[in-house]
């Protein structure tokens, strides 16, 4: 071995496989291909799927989930979870309504609602990152707490007198296209989150925390601060989704968006993020959200009830986590046969070989 100041005695290839193979053989690609296949199938077979309103409604429906999936992905990659997002949506919806009712303009009320979301995230983040409590338990608690405040503030009434100009903004499209206006802020946020997760030192820390938080601490990653930032982001983005939800339906209610947290988490996991943390990419997650949206939209057009969508989403979710295990097991039983097919979602190489 040479001294550290000497010139390197070895050089290495950067990657073990060519680019096309690394891109093709990935969980994310599998989800994207599946999504594209479902879209193509629906275009060909589902009446009205190519209709003018389908795309607009589809995107409007999944917009809140797309938004919240961004911070949720980062949180799950660190190995934590945030179950309180839908309650923050509900709370920001109610605050928007109540404050507007009290005479505030929509922008002022929205700003306060966003701040409330930030505060909610701060509470979660403080308890999880600095007190060190398990996020599952904390956010089950704040799920009840934030929803409780929302319902407590408004009871069973609804506030519906929002100005038309704002409702139009929430339901409008970009120019003559079928893309809803809400996709603009979403696109900006999506780019921001992709940079944050995949092209920043902060994002590298997120993965390290998820793979091994102790090793991350030993290399100087500020684990607590990273988690705090992510829960703050989750709070703000959830509040934003709540504001959009309220304006779109023109109704602020305490029980708005109930149960969305599970939909978001299902989409994130379907998109290839490991619940153990450390693995997953944002494009896979966004494809996962779109996949669920397309399936429910197509089934609705086929007048199939929402129940079947539930079953399909649930089965996809179970299959997506079970499949790597099953393939890994099959691979160990029949080494040659399993490796012969490189196209399908392959078993995770790492989990298959980690042993010792």
């Amino acid at each position, binding site marked *: 071995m040479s001294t550290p100041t000497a010139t390197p005695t070895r050089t290495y290839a*950067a990657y073990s496989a060519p680019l096309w193979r690394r891109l093709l053989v990935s969980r994310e690609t599998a989800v994207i291909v599946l999504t594209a296949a479902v879209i193509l199938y629906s275009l060909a077979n589902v009446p009205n799927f190519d209709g003018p309103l389908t795309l607009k409604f589809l995107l409007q429906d999944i917009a809140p989930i797309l938004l919240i999936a961004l911070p949720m992905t980062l949180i799950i990659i660190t190995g934590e979870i945030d179950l309180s997002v839908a309650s923050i949506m509900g709370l920001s919806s109610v605050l928007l309504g109540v404050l507007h009712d009290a005479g505030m303009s929509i922008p002022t009320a929205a700003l306060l609602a966003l701040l409330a979301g930030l505060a909610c995230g701060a509470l979660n983040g403080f308890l999880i990152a600095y007190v060190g409590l398990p996020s599952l338990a904390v956010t089950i608690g704040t799920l009840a707490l934030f929803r409780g405040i929302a319902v407590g503030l408004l009871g069973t009434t609804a506030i519906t007198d929002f100005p038309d100009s704002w409702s139009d903004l929430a339901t409008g499209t970009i120019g003559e296209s079928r893309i809803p206006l809400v996709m603009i802020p979403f696109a900006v946020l999506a780019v921001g989150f992709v940079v944050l997760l995949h092209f920043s030192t902060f994002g590298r820390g997120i993965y390290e925390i998820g793979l091994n938080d102790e090793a991350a601490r030993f290399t100087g990653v500020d684990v607590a601060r990273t988690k705090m930032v992510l829960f703050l982001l989750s709070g703000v983005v959830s509040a934003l989704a709540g504001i959009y939800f309220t304006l779109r339906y023109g109704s602020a209610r305490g029980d708005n968006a109930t149960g969305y947290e599970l939909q978001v988490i299902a989409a994130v996991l379907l998109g290839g993020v490991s619940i153990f943390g450390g693995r997953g990419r944002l494009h896979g997650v966004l494809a996962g959200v779109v996949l669920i949206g397309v399936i429910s939209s197509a089934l609705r057009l086929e007048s199939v009830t929402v129940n079947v969508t539930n079953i399909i989403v649930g089965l996809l979710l179970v299959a997506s986590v079970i499949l790597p295990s099953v393939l890994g097991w099959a691979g160990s039983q029949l080494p040659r046969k399993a490796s012969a097919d490189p196209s399908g979602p392959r078993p995770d190489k790492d989990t298959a070989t*980690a042993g010792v």
Partner: protein
Amino acid sequence: MAASNTAAPVLVLHDVSKSFGPVVALRSGSISVEEGSIHALVGENGAGKSTLVKVVAGVHRRDAGTFELDGRPVDFGSTAESKAAGVAVIYQEPTLFPDLSVTENIFMGRQPLARGRRIDRPAMHAEAERLFSRLGVKIDPRRPAEGLSIADQQIIEIAKAISLDARLLVMDEPTAALSGVEVDRLFAVARSLRDEGRALVFISHRFDEVFDLCDTVTVMRDGSYVDTRRVADTTPSDLVSLMVGRDVDELFPKVAAEIGEPVLEVRGLNRAGVFHDVDLVVRAGEIVGLAGLVGAGRSEVARAVFGVDAYDSGTVTMSGRKVRPRDPRAAIRAGMAFIPEDRRKQGLVIDASVTRNVAAVIRRSIARAGLITGAMENRAAGPWAGRLEVKTSALDMNAATMSGGNQQKVVIAKWLATNPRLLIIDEPTRGIDVGTKSEVHRLLSELAGQGLAILMISSELPEVLGMADRVLVLCEGRVTTELDRAEATPEAVMHAATHHLEDAR
């Protein structure tokens, strides 16, 4: 093989091998243990002893070779099967259930039952007390396992194994954390078990124990069987040359270095229940060895100095500047590098690539405005991996697929890339092969020669004695002695590592 008498072998392993992916942990393991005997298994770190033990225990299934128990071929797929066959194993790392009581830990899964298949707690506690008195220790059978000292945890493991009433008892370094008195009691129990006709396998790094306790000794090196001898017919130096396979002096190429100004100064470091009033100084160009029993607080001191753990009082200074407590980033900025004991859990992110690991600390300086790409990381990490001759086909290979020695090189590369002034290295050669081991030793020596201050923690006495300019010995969280290179003999270090305990009791 040297047969001591006509007794039938209880355990026979012949040519057993085991690999984990590309890593060969056990190349060709053989051992034959007779009933009514205590058989020592010795070898350096990474010689394959623990893997062999885990094959016997049913934790791992062997890839090839014969494995016989009482003359019948066996193939254990789980620890439950080996237990049922009468094999009890004490693993190196205690495996206790922290939430449960000490007694429940001992009897889990085979608690004494009263009528109606309910657990007979009074009988269970009485049995636990009987075991503890046989071992001569005072542990409350009703207290939780959480918070026990490492030594007490090891005692629980031993009690667990004895209570199994096994034909074959395998002990993987059971004495690493025990004081002299505790070791004596354990040996008394081991001898009485032998006299009852049971077979024991005893793994230890301490030759005095091997020669004191065992009848036969098998030496392993680099995953393979080397030789088996009667303890009465051999000497410690014979064993060392069998273990190392070459001359010892060659193994620790100590380069004389010019010792400079103090780099790290620690004053009065305290943490309740862990360590007390620790003072230490490491100068530029100096290798300071931190010795002591497992659980004496060596790693804990290092972690506190680096800021991973908190301390209650005391100061840590680097070149005269105080380092903020409980802030690893401040420690890194001050020029510290820390290679921790547990490579898989702390040293590196085992499921991440070579690049990500090597660039993990320096990425903040190679990033532009906080932004970073994979290409930037590869450019920065590649040369460092090359300098340490990391064996990998590509930089995106997962660290988990590499051998222990290669993983250690990745960790060293990661920290050398930060251009540190102080290197804290905890168990530098644990679990790595002999070849890489001497590479690491030579590197440490060269680094010190270039003026790096090194604080080295090691359980291997030859390593400490061969490498260190000065040796500090910790015992129960206190520095009991400081020896310079000339004074540091195995006897002096072992005495300092245990005498505090004896005085206290």
